[in-house]
């Protein structure tokens, strides 16, 4: 018996990889996950975007262009994936609010609304319209969070500043985990005699226990309290990543950190092992099936050259939207960059199209035609396709 052989190896520790991993490990498969670094979930707001094209994400999905990979996921599986996610996060102590049939709004640091489907409980009380009056608490020296942006866009909004003794996002969040700090903060907050309906904070209210901390503050001051997502370092993103990772481990999965996959071993139509770079000698890990969840460009799954886009582990054919001129829109902030369509084309079982491989399944941001930015379908699509990939994997192994 080999102790280093697995049923399934997943490449990439993003929302897609960790979701597929927990699904399979929870059903008794021996699963290992290898990753070169931490995923884009850490940079995200922690909110689960499913599809922002319609107020009802399910209807929005129906409107997506025919090539969109969401069409490969049965509606039943989309529901199942979000339900599993909500149950898992409840279990890990970071409950998520929301339902698949209705998008919600999250107040952004610019004072605009971000549309998302499931939101961390710490953002549940965010206003859904412009009526509520809001009092923002900021922290002395905290960079990249300016209440005046929000005030310039919203009436009935005021702010105060608290001196936490430190000014970095991590430092403040860390302090909130200490009982004494939280206590003296609450005493200060009560002393502010806030009149507004709701109290808002940049998302620095703790790391592991944010849900509890928000609840405590709300109860003690007797007003709804919510977090406003910040740019990275993003605490809600980190909480999401930590919870997914711990959940995967709890289900029995193994993680190999800092193992960039650099090659493969193959035989006929099968991949037998992935080779990873570690100090001194390459390590190879065997498995019966593989799930590729290395994300798009930021995650590292796709690499753009001058004229070509490649996937460097299995060398899968990459769908390139057109010549380089079409990759980028002139407006930097546009949602319409052509390169958003680049990725791996797959068949209905999420095997890479046009390749001989029988035991590779692809999911998450690396898929072609997602246009994640334009369609507002980041983590939600990753979870849904991860479920399809995991199920195909199970079917194949059986």
């Amino acid at each position, binding site marked *: 018996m*080999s*102790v*280093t052989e697995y049923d399934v190896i997943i490449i990439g520790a993003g929302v897609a990889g960790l979701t597929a991993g927990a699904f399979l490990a929870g059903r008794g498969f021996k699963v290992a996950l290898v990753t*070169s*670094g*931490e*995923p884009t979930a*850490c*940079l995200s707001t922690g909110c689960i975007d499913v599809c922002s094209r319609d107020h009802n994400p399910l209807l929005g999905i129906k409107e997506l262009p025919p090539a969109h990979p969401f069409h490969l996921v049965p509606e039943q599986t989309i529901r199942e994936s979000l339900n599993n996610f909500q149950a898992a996060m409840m279990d890990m102590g970071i409950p998520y609010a929301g339902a698949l049939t209705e998008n919600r709004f999250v107040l952004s640091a610019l004072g605009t609304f971000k549309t998302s489907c499931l939101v961390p409980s710490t953002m549940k009380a965010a206003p859904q319209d412009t009526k509520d009056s809001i009092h923002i608490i900021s922290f002395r020296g905290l960079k990249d969070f300016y209440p005046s942006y929000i005030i310039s866009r919203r009436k009935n909004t005021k702010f105060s500043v608290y001196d936490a*003794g*430190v*000014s*970095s996002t*991590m*430092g403040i969040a*860390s302090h909130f985990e200490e009982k004494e700090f939280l206590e003296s903060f609450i005493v200060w907050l009560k002393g502010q005699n806030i009149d507004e309906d709701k109290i808002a904070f940049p998302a620095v209210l703790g790391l592991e226990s944010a849900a509890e901390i928000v609840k405590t503050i709300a109860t003690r001051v007797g007003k709804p309290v919510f977090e406003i997502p910040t740019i*990275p*370092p993003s605490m809600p993103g*980190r909480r999401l990543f*930590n919870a997914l990772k711990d959940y995967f*481990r709890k289900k029995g999965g*193994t993680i*190999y*950190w*800092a*193992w*960039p996959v650099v090659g493969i071993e193959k035989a006929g139509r099968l991949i037998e092992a992935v080779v*990873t*770079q*570690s*100090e*001194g*000698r390459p*390590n190879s890990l065997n498995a019966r099936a593989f799930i590729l969840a290395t994300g798009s460009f*930021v*995650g*590292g799954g796709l690499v753009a050259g001058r004229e070509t886009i490649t996937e460097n582990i299995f060398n899968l054919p990459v769908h390139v939207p057109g010549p380089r001129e079409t990759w980028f829109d002139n407006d930097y902030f546009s949602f319409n960059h052509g390169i958003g369509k680049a990725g791996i084309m797959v068949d209905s079982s999420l095997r890479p199209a046009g390749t001989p491989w029988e035991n590779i399944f692809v999911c998450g941001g690396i898929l072609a035609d997602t246009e994640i930015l334009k369609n507002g379908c980041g983590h939600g699509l990753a979870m849904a396709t991860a479920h399809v990939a995991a199920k195909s994997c199970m079917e194949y192994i059986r």
Partner: protein
Amino acid sequence: MNFEHCIRCTICVENCPVLRVNPDFPGPKQAGPDAQRFRSDREKAEDKWVLLCSQCKRCEMACPCGVEPAQIILRAQQRYGLEHPLSPAHLLFANNYYLSTLGSLTAPLANRIAATKVGKKIFSAMGIATYIPFPKFRFRTLRQEKKTRSRRSRKVAFFYGCFINFYRPDIGRKIIQLLKSFKVDVVLPPQWCCGLPALGNGNLALARSFALKNTASLSNYIDAGYDILYSCTSCGLCLLHDYQGILEIPQAKKITENTYDLHEYILRLVDDNYIKPQFQEVPRKLAYHIPCHLRALGIGYPAAKLMSLIPGLTCEILDDTCCGLSGSYGFKKSNESTAIQIGNRAVAVIKKTGAGAIVADCGSCRMQLGGLSGLATLDPAEVISEALGITLEKKRKS
């Protein structure tokens, strides 16, 4: 190491245990790739804060772009050490090996001094923290042990490292017995401190001289068909990573290619069907604190894999926390408060598991966590020996 690959995602920042508790440290992104832009060979180094980095390498493990902030900082630390007179504590800990040799030759006396008030005052005046007891020197070091050979096919040369040698030779003896029980020949090659303490205290020249001596010695054994084993994960990281990297040792590649973690090696023996260990039941619940440097080695967690084969044993893997001591880092007065705060966080996570004892591969992690938590600590080799019914032979011919 390439600071220009940094995309400023701040994922490293979120992973830095020092930044979390010490606002004076700007964190891996700023101290690493950001500051690197402004470092010039023509100006004296003024970035004293680089010394606040404990070299846990967690930033490197997390970076999705392969930037290696810890490497950049390590080089800045060496440069700072070269250009500025360092504190007595830095000098002392760089020379820890010589200090320890002296300590073990005069063990009873040295231990008594270290335990007295006067001794503690002297330590404190030199900038050495005394919040956890200084490790006790042992009279009979492992070095004085006779070579143990049996005529079998697998041969290993054991790099036991300073901690086992000077403080816990009994663990070293257990490891030797464990390997003998697996029909592996063990020799103890001539060896010196791996060099990591010297490197961590800004003394590149001393680190290099240790490394050269070790490389010459180990290289002879490799030529004679031995594999090199280490059990201290920090020694391992230094041998495999720093000899090739910052220390630029000519034969380092050979060392790297032939050196294995003890448990990694045992797993290979299992996989090769060379051994079939019959583990007895160990009905215990343990918390496995993964040393940062085991993570950084990029070999997965081989001891966890082995321990998972032991019936009755539950072993919870905890790899999100650093113990805070980082070798000699926390023993410096200037880092005391940082080390305690980081350590207490790790202890809180351990206590949450309800485990009866802590396992960790690294002696200094065990010292710190045992000291702060009051829980018993074990080397994984001790747990595996227990499961195989291996105890130290009482009568040893010396």
